[in-house]
């Protein structure tokens, strides 16, 4: 059942994209079929293949009862990891790479340690991973920006 819902969602998005493609601006010297040609071909093919798949799923009991994996992604420790990473990603620009990464490494390592061993990290270990987290993120930052001249967000630590 889940797979059918998944395909239905994809189909709705595809049909929506099909209609959006109608409003693409057209260049009058372009004789190649225009910007909407290729997306439309793909959408038609996609719908065609999904219809066949739907028929197969409907006619096959085994397929029909197969569990569709989706919500497993948002359960327990996985949810914490996903949310933590999302917060990290959203804050990395305003706060800067070094601060967010240090905090993220520290927090996530603590959480995963707890999940794996069912006990909290010792204070001493905490100190070590905090210090190494700061060092690693600072080292990364300096390596990328100074050695490779690749920009990473500086954030509120203006002096870096």
């Amino acid at each position: 059942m889940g797979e059918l819902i998944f395909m239905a969602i994809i189909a709705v998005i595809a049909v929506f994209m099909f209609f959006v493609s109608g409003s693409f601006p057209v260049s009058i010297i372009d004789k190649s079929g225009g910007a909407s040609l290729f997306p439309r071909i793909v959408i038609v093919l996609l719908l065609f293949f999904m219809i066949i798949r739907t028929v197969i799923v409907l006619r096959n009991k085994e397929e029909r009862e197969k569990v569709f994996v989706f919500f497993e992604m948002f359960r327990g420790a996985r949810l914490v990891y996903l949310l933590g990473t999302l917060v990290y990603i959203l804050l990395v620009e305003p706060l800067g790479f070094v601060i967010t990464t240090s905090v993220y490494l520290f927090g996530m390592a603590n959480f995963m340690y707890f999940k794996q061993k069912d006990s909290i990290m010792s204070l001493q270990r905490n100190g070590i991973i905090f210090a190494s987290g700061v060092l690693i993120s600072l080292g990364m930052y300096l390596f990328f920006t100074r050695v490779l001249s690749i920009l990473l967000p500086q954030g509120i630590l203006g002096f870096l």
Partner: protein
Amino acid sequence: MKKVLLLLVVLMMIPAFAFAGGDQEEAAPAAEVADGPYVPTKDITFVVPFSAGGNSDIPARIFAKYMTKYSDVEVKVTNIVGAGGKAGAREVMKADPDGSMLIMQPVGYPMQYSLGVAEFTYEDFAPIGQWLDSTLAVVVNADSSYMSMDDLVAAADAAPGTIKMGSVTGTLPTFATIEIEMQKDVEFNKVDLSGASKAPELLSNRIDGYIDGFGAIKQYVESGQFRCLGIITDVKIKGYEEIPTFTEAGFTGYEYLKQAFGLWAPKGTPAEVVEYINNLIKLASEDAECIEEMNALGIAPAHNSVAQYTKNMETTYAKFQDVAKAIVGN
């Protein structure tokens, strides 16, 4: 020979420097000189909005080297790639207007604006000046029967819409093709070439001809595989005097099709900073080694004043607006 040339250039520059000293003492308007009242403290980042090693990047790197030669700070080339070159401009637009971050203005910006795909114009920046001149050329396969532009035009006239002229659509060569069509009242089949592999299409005769920078097609002309029917300029290229200019081929009003690269600073950059960088361009473009290195690639350094450049930008933007109507309709 080289040494004599160098000496000449140095001699020619002495007055410029002398003038610089004088200027400083009198604290006159910060014009014309490298060592005038404005002295940069930060390195200058020369943003190339295309990838490293490309046709725009290579001249930029060479030119930046000579700009560094005449400046107290280093002129570094950085590539900010994306959105057909627009990503670099957007990045520079946001930068501090202190002359430490500049964007290379490719020919693409006025075209993209005229096609409605870029939202900024030269007015959103502080134009500094032009630094590079390169010429477009029309080439056909050496085996073909087209010996001159007239042959090509005649063929297009005889069979409208079938002679395949290639260009990377939406770039200057497309506009050049349209200009030829408009002036001679013919119609080509304007086919799109992939930016990375233009020559194979002509080598294998899948297209009848294409337009590209002279530097890019030079080696095929030398190897005898292509024939160059004309260069879109009124000045002969040294060493290739037998190639007719577009004036000789009977075209007029094609000046806007010059592949001129300029330099822009973020809007609000103080006038003396702009003048300082404009003068760096001047000094570098007059450097004999720089001219030699560029000429080897089939291009030439250029220079004009800030006012002249801004005026050129104005006419170029207006001209493209006109021609773009042939592409987008309305």
